[in-house]
């Protein structure tokens, strides 16, 4: 496939995701809403990383370096949230 065309298609996919996430924000989905919003954001980030940042062309080590930051962020979020979510549980 033509390299430029592929990028344009990825861009189109990003725009579709943007439309979906915007639409979903107005639906009465309750507690699921943030999950959907962040799920779509993750999907968009993955598209950018994989195609625009060309991780698809790279070896395992480079991919590892690229996602290391995100993995570490997950550690930060998970354990911080572990505090906030359970702080007011009474035992």
């Amino acid at each position, binding site marked *: 496939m033509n390299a430029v065309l592929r*990028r*344009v298609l990825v861009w189109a996919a*990003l725009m579709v995701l*943007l439309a979906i996430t915007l639409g979903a924000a107005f639906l009465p989905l309750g507690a699921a809403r943030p999950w959907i919003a962040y799920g779509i954001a993750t999907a968009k980030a993955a598209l*950018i990383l994989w195609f*625009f940042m060309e991780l698809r062309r790279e070896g395992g080590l480079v991919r590892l*370096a690229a996602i290391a930051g995100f993995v*570490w962020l997950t550690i930060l979020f998970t354990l911080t*949230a572990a505090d*906030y979510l359970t702080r007011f549980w009474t035992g």
Partner: protein
Amino acid sequence: MLVFLASEVMLFGGIFAAALALRLEHESAYGAAAHHLNLWLGTANTAVLLTSSLMAAIAVQAARDGKPAWAARALWAAVLLGCVFLAIKGAEYAGDLREGLMPGTAQAHFEGTTQHLFMNLYFIGTGLHAVHVTIGLGLLVVAALNRQARHDQHAVLIGNVALYWHLVDVVWVFLYPTLYLAGAR
């Protein structure tokens, strides 16, 4: 370069963690505060930045294909879109200032403390992002002006600049739901 980008990701990580904590602690007020942001400007900016990212990606490909003229055009398009992003951002800030939502200014008045806090976080988050956009723009301009870079079929300079630009984009992709979407209703 990617190692440096991982470092940048962690820089924004602190902001996101603060937003997460705030949201967990002030569930309802967070959404109410976010509602005051202009969702449509935020959405438009997301589209602008994503498109700009596309241009940067095309520039890399064009350089690789030995089409320096196209590479330059794509880079300038990316720069232009980046400026549009900053312009929209500026208009948004100006609106916030008029409405008295700009912290630290004389007109500032908030409906309650959570909104105050949210707006502070919004300005720190988007401000830090805007600084990165500006740096990214500078890099893009350097790449666009550099003859050698355009003719380099390995696209080393353009490639790295584009990587940085994509990262700025990725950060925004997460700022958007954190700040704007949370308030949609």
